[in-house]
């Protein structure tokens, strides 16, 4: 399971991922004018993203869709502004509906589109992504989240019953059967932890396939993250530009952002250790010190061993600005 039924507030890694996304948009969209943009995503029942996008960036043109009429009814109840549009729609229909969505917001010129998938129906998802990408324009933002759990390519013992050479080869064969055209030919085995990296390469090929269909369109990765609350997820965000446009998008200044993507292999691994407020304060007081010293400040381990605890602290140090503070109000 992807964690979709866990309340949003109890998924600290997803929380951090979204905070980073909002900050990313503040660097890409705000300088160009948020009033030009329409934000389109699946939203979820509580439209948490839409709230964040509206509250922190001031984007008022918000569009949400979901297959289930009941979820849409719930979205309508929860929508952050009266102008927010929530419709029953399949993600497969999004590409052909983009023109209609822009018609609904006649003064908006650009899109932020987020295909936020949780299942592992990758063939349909990649095809939808390509069809969406070819309809984007200069200044748009494309974001896709995929299920990157290795279990989505078979349980740990399944390869034995299928006469595969090994689990890694079995996973590669399964993924090749799903998306033969987007899986690089030199991927012959996928280890237990490699799927996010492999999927990034697949997305790169899907983006190149879109660029071949629409010469002149360019897609630059601006943020790649992977996190795990329930299942491991992968999110890739790209800025869209067009050959010949006088505006540099993203700008050179964007490259100064700490998390600005340096290339297709630059994946931010988000791993937030579960911390009490007291632990969090202690770590915050020691942020200027090295990871080892931060760990000694706690005098206990945060994970199964020292190496894992140091990794957790390094991750905390990178993402502490976004770390959620959840506490019962009566505590």
């Amino acid at each position, binding site marked *: 399971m992807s964690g979709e039924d866990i309340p949003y507030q109890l998924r600290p890694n997803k929380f951090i991922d979204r905070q980073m996304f909002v900050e990313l948009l503040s660097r890409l969209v705000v300088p160009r004018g948020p009033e030009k943009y329409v934000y389109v995503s699946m939203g979820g029942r509580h439209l948490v993203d839409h709230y964040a996008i509206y509250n922190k960036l001031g984007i008022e043109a918000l569009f949400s869709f979901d297959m289930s009429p009941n979820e849409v009814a719930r979205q309508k109840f929860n929508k952050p502004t009266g102008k927010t549009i929530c419709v029953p729609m399949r993600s497969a229909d999004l590409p052909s509906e983009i023109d209609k969505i822009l018609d609904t917001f006649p003064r908006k010129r650009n899109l932020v589109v987020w295909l936020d998938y949780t299942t592992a129906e990758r063939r349909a998802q990649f095809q939808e992504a390509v069809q969406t990408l070819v309809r984007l324009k200069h200044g748009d933002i494309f974001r896709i989240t995929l299920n990157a759990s290795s279990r989505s390519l078979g349980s740990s013992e399944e390869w034995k019953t299928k006469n595969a050479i090994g689990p890694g080869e079995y996973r590669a064969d399964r993924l*090749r059967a799903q998306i033969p055209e987007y899986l690089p*030919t030199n991927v012959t085995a996928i280890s237990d932890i490699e799927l996010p990296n492999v999927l990034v390469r697949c997305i790169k090929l899907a983006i190149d396939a879109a*660029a071949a269909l629409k010469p002149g369109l360019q897609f630059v990765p601006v943020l790649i993250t992977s996190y795990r609350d329930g299942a491991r997820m992968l999110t890739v965000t790209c800025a869209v530009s067009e050959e010949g446009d006088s505006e540099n998008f993203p700008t050179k200044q964007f490259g100064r952002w700490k998390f600005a993507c340096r290339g297709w292999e630059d994946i931010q691994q988000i791993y937030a250790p579960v911390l009490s407020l007291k632990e969090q304060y202690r770590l915050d007081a020691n942020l200027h010190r090295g990871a080892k010293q931060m760990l000694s400040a706690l005098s206990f381990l945060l994970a199964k061993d020292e190496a894992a605890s140091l990794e957790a602290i390094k991750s905390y140090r990178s993402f502490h600005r976004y770390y959620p503070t959840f506490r019962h109000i009566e505590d």
Partner: protein
Amino acid sequence: MVGDEKGTIWGGPTKRFFVSMLTRDIQLTDAILDLVDNCVDGATRQLKSKLRGAKPYEGFAARLTLSAASFDISDNCGGIPQAAIEDAFLLGRPKLDQNIPTIGMYGIGMKRAIFKIGEEATVESFAADGAFEVSYTRDWLNPENDEWDLPIKKLTDRKEKGVTIAVPTLRKDVARQFGNAAFLNALRNAISEHFGYLIQKGFSVFVNGEKLRGRTLQLFATDSPKKGGIRPYDFESDDDGVHVRVTVGFYRPLVRIEEIDEEAERPLEGEQAGISVICNDRLVLVNDTSMKTGWGDGGVPKYHPQFRGIAGFIIFSADQPDKLPISTTKRDLDIGAEVYLHARQYCMEGLRECTDFTNKWKGMEDEASQYFEQTKRKDVRTEVDLAAKHGTAVRGNTSARKLSAALPVPERRNPMRRISFTRKEDDVRLVSQHLFDESDEKPSIVGQECFDRTLKVAK
């Protein structure tokens, strides 16, 4: 009045036809496959009759380097001998290569590929009897230029014998494609598929340094025909210098009805079902599910997603390429050729067996899966030789042998029957809540539970 005093008019070709019209008949990927084909032909000529054995092509290789700036392909397959130079650069072949199992017959592949890819090119050859370089200059490639002579110069010989085609300047649209990683991945996939059987026989192909793995057909096949389980239909014959092999079976277990329903809403997997046709080790037709290979003809049902587990191939091998049923592009069939129609008949026999099996087990796919679990998938070309070893005679064809798949049949006394119906979503949810205390159970499970409870009462 057009013509000269002799009463004749010029009926020869124009440069434009070759350098800018003929290139439209072929896709860029296919043009590159033609170049690799030529490398293989070189290796085949080197091997002469030593083509038997598991890996006769071991040591022979084609290396392709592509980028948005340039293209080159080089091989170590023997080069172009002196006696063949003139024919090699003619547009069209004056005579056929005899006794060489190739699929090149028309003498146009290399030139058409060069015209398709570049604005200028050089061809270097290092053969046992000499080395030379031929240049296709921008001037020569100008459609308005009626000069047909190509500059040729001798080169200093070298140890490794082979051909290198270098294209330093690409056509604009080609440069864009060569700079696109998705195109390169598709090209690698096409080479792995098209030359899968030659790679299996030891030939190597490298694209931008990556050694490609061959892709070949794997089907469920029992170790012995006496064992129960799943095995393919297999046919072999030797007729008029053409060896034919037809094998049809299952590459995956039967598709469940739920999968077909899901697939109708969104694609789940790439299509691997269907019949492929292979001529002299090159894939000419891939995963065909049309009348071309017998689907929907002579009692074989039309292809339908329920048959997604069925795959197979028709293989033709001949030392005289003009006996093969292929078209000029080498990537399509001459489906009217007698040799092809004959093989297609047997392909239809195999398809009938496999589609019958699928139909008989419809709705009982889980029960049928036991037969697949008992059986392993094997490489058909190298590990399955059912017709040759165990086949029976074929009436009217003394050189042919065949072995039917003889697939398991379900119990006839009390066969399974499928029940299918639709109801409004609200009602299904209501019944689901009533039966399972959850409103979102799958409709098929809700229907089954209704039947099972009623059956209990009825009994």
